[in-house]
C-alpha cells in the first residue's frame, strides 16, 4: 500500500475543468469533509466508460476472491434478487477477480455487496484501460470534475495486482502517476476517509487471446504461448477505483470450522455454507430447513443471515452429539444466534412428520428455503426406514409380549435406498413445502470424467436457477439452486418428472431409465442403488467429506 509522498510536485488544478477550490474550503476542513461525502453520493456523477448505459446506471468495480469461481456470479445474482436491485454485469470472467457492473446508486452498490461471501469489496470505477496511458486518459475524462470533492479528505492509495508482481518502488512510481488529481488532504495508512486502489490484472490466459495479447505489447522475440503466463511483465487491464464498501467475507473467519464447538466429518465449510444460504435467499424472519442437518453447518449459516432454522436427520446422535456440551444446539449458543434456533428432530425424508392435514387457511408451504447436502452413501450406503425384506409382513415385532418399537432403546430397521430415488424425494418434498418463490439448494456429487452420470434433477414446480461446480482432485460436486414456482405447474410432455412418493417401490430405477414398476427389479445392495458409490470405489481414493 502506498501514498503520495507529501513533497511530490503536483500539477495544480490544471486538469480540474476550471473548478478551482475557493480558499474557504481549505480553512473549514471538518465541514468540508461531510460535504465531500454527501456531494460524492448525490450531486456529481461519473462519466460512463460504457456509453450504452441508461442515465441513472453507473459503473462499479467488484473485487472478487479468486475462489469457487463458478459460484461467484450466481451468488451476486441471488443477492440482487434478494435486495431487489437493478444491475447489469458489464465485464466478468471467471479467470480474474475484477468485474465491472452497472448499478443505479452507490447505496445499491453497498447493499448488494454487504452480504456477499465471494466478493471482497465494491468500488466506484474511476477509470480503466489496457495500459497506464489509457487508464490516465480514462480517469481524467471521467472524473476530473469530481477531484475537488476529495481535495482535503484524508486518503490513501492502495495497490492490487492479480497474477503479477510489482516491486515496492514501481508501485510507488505508478501511484505517483496519479498525482494530477491534486489531493491535498493528509495521507492516512489507517482508516483514511477515502481509499483509492490501483488494480492490475495480469490474467494468465490473456496470452492466448490475440486481442488481449496485442494489448500486452510483448516483444516479438518472446511471443510464444510457451512463455510462462504467470510471469507477464505488464498487466493487460488496469483500473483505478474508489472504495465504497466491504462484503461479508469476514464471516468466514467467524464461522471457521476449526473454531466451532461441535463438528462432524461431513460438516460443510463455513465459506460454502454461507454462500449456499445466500443462494437460497435466506434473510431475517424467513424459515429455513435442512432435511439432512447433520452437525448443522447450513443451519448455522441460515441463522447467521437471520432465518429461523429447522433441521432433521435420520441419525439423532448427530443432533444431540455424543459428548456433553457438544451438540448442534451448542453451536447456536456459541454464535449467539439462539433466537433463530427453530428446532432439530430425528426423522427420515421418506416418512417425514412435516406437513399438516389440508384445511382452510392452512398451508403446507411453510419454508422459504430448503438447503441440503444429502448423504452420497459412500461410507455406509444410503439408508431409509423400512425392512430389507419387502415380503416381511407389516406387523409389529413382539418379543416376550413387548412390541419392540415401544422399547426406549429401539433402533428402527433401515434398508438401502437409491440415490436417484432420494433426489426424487427431495424435489417432491421441496415442491410440497416451499413457499411461493422459495428456494431449494442441493449439493450433489458428480464425477469429472462423466459429468452426465447424474442428470440434474428436474421437477415441474421447480425452476433451475444455477449450477455451480466445486472441483476436487478426482471428483467434483455441484450446488443446484431452484426456485419454487408460485403455483403448481402442469406436467410437461416428454419430460420425465418426479414420481409420486405415495408408494415406495423396490428401488432399482436407474438414472434416466423411465419409471416403470414392472421393470423395477429387486436390487438391495448399496452399489446397485448408487452409481456414485460404485464409481467411488472403482477409482476415487479420497473420501469426499475430508476434501471439503
Amino acid at each position, binding site marked *: 500500500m502506498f501514498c503520495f509522498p507529501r513533497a511530490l510536485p503536483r500539477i495544480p488544478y490544471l486538469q480540474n475543468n476550471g473548478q478551482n477550490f475557493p480558499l474557504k474550503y481549505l480553512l473549514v476542513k471538518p465541514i468540508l469533509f461531510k460535504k465531500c461525502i454527501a456531494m460524492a453520493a448525490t450531486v456529481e456523477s461519473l462519466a460512463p466508460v460504457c456509453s450504452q448505459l441508461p442515465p441513472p446506471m453507473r459503473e462499479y468495480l467488484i473485487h472478487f476472491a479468486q475462489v469457487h469461481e463458478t459460484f461467484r456470479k450466481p451468488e451476486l445474482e441471488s443477492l440482487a434478487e434478494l435486495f*431487489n436491485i437493478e444491475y447489469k454485469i458489464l465485464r466478468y470472467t471467471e479467470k480474474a477477480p475484477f468485474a465491472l457492473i452497472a448499478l443505479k446508486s452507490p447505496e445499491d452498490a453497498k447493499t448488494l455487496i454487504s452480504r456477499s461471501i465471494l466478493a471482497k469489496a465494491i468500488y466506484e470505477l474511476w477509470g480503466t484501460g489496457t495500459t497506464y496511458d489509457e487508464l490516465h486518459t480514462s480517469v481524467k475524462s471521467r472524473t476530473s470534475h469530481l477531484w475537488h470533492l476529495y481535495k482535503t479528505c484524508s486518503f490513501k492509495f492502495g495497490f492490487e495486482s492479480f497474477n503479477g508482481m510489482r516491486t515496492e518502488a514501481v508501485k510507488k512510481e505508478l501511484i505517483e502517476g496519479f498525482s494530477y488529481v491534486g489531493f491535498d488532504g493528509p495521507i492516512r495508512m489507517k482508516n483514511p476517509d477515502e481509499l483509492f486502489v490501483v488494480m492490475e490484472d495480469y490474467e494468465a490466459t490473456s496470452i492466448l487471446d490475440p486481442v488481449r495479447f496485442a494489448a500486452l505489447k510483448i516483444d516479438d522475440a518472446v511471443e510464444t504461448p510457451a512463455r510462462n503466463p504467470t510471469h507477464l511483465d505488464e498487466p493487460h487491464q488496469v483500473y483505478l477505483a474508489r472504495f465504497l464498501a466491504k462484503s461479508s467475507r469476514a464471516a468466514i473467519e467467524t464461522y471457521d470450522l476449526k473454531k466451532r464447538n461441535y463438528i462432524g466429518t461431513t460438516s460443510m465449510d463455513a465459506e460454502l455454507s454461507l454462500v449456499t444460504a445466500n443462494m437460497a435467499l435466506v434473510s431475517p424472519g424467513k424459515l429455513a430447513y435442512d432435511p439432512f442437518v447433520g452437525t448443522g453447518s447450513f443451519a448455522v449459516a441460515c441463522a447467521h443471515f437471520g432465518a429461523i432454522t429447522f433441521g432433521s436427520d435420520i441419525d439423532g446422535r448427530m443432533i444431540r452429539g455424543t459428548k456433553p456440551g457438544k451438540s448442534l444446539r451448542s453451536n447456536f449458543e456459541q454464535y449467539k444466534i439462539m433466537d433463530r434456533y427453530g428446532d432439530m*428432530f430425528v426423522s427420515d425424508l421418506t*416418512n417425514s412428520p412435516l406437513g*399438516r392435514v389440508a384445511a382452510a387457511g392452512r398451508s403446507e408451504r411453510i419454508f422459504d428455503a430448503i438447503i441440503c447436502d444429502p448423504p452420497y452413501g459412500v461410507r455406509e450406503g444410503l439408508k431409509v426406514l423400512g425392512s430389507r425384506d419387502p415380503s416381511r409382513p407389516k406387523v409389529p415385532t413382539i418379543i416376550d409380549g413387548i412390541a419392540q418399537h415401544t422399547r426406549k432403546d429401539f433402533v428402527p430397521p433401515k434398508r438401502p435406498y437409491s440415490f436417484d430415488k432420494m433426489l426424487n424425494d427431495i424435489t417432491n418434498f421441496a415442491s410440497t413445502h416451499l413457499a411461493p418463490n422459495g428456494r431449494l439448494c442441493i449439493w450433489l456429487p458428480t464425477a469429472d470424467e462423466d459429468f452426465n452420470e447424474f442428470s440434474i434433477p428436474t421437477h415441474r414446480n421447480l425452476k433451475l436457477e444455477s449450477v455451480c461446480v466445486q472441483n476436487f482432485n478426482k471428483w467434483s460436486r455441484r450446488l443446484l439452486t431452484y426456485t419454487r414456482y408460485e403455483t403448481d405447474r402442469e406436467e410437461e410432455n416428454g419430460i420425465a418428472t418426479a414420481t409420486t412418493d405415495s408408494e415406495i417401490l423396490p428401488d432399482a430405477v436407474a438414472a434416466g431409465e423411465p419409471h416403470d414398476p414392472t421393470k423395477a427389479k429387486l436390487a438391495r445392495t448399496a452399489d446397485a442403488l448408487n452409481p456414485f458409490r460404485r464409481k467411488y470405489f472403482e477409482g476415487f481414493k479420497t473420501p469426499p467429506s475430508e476434501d471439503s
Partner: protein
Amino acid sequence: MKLLTANFLSCAVKACKSSPLSFPLHFRDAELASKSVPYNPLLLSNLLPRLDWPALVTSSKELGFTLPDTKPELPRLSTSTGGDDGDMNMSVDGGSGVGEEDEKTLKMLHKVLMETEVVEGKMVCGSCGFEYGIHQSVGNFLLPSHLV
C-alpha cells in the same frame, strides 16, 4: 421440541396424513423447560401468518398455557436487510413503531413459541395412537418397519 415446531408436524405414518386427527400431535408426559432466548419481534411477526392458530391453542392448552381463541393481528415488521419487499418499513429496534398492545402480544408469542420447550415426553397421534418420544429436547419421528 418447541410449540412452534409442533405446529408444523403431523403423524409420520403415511396412512394418517389424510386424517384430521393426526394434526396436531398431542403432548403427553411433557417435562417443560423455559429457556431464555433473545427477543426478536421481526421473526415473530413473520412467523405468525404461517401458524395454524387452532392447533397452537390446542398444543398450548396441553402444556398449560392459555392463548386467545383467535389469531392476533399484528403489523408485518421488516428491516432494511430483510429484502422482504419492504412493503411496511417499520423499525423494530427497541420496539419503536410497535404499539403497546402489539408488543404485549409479541412478548406472549415469544414466550410460548420460542422460549418454551418440551425436554422429555411424548407426542401422540390422535389417529393411530403412535407415540413419538422426545429426548433431550429432540423429537424422534422414526417409524418401525411395519409402519413404513
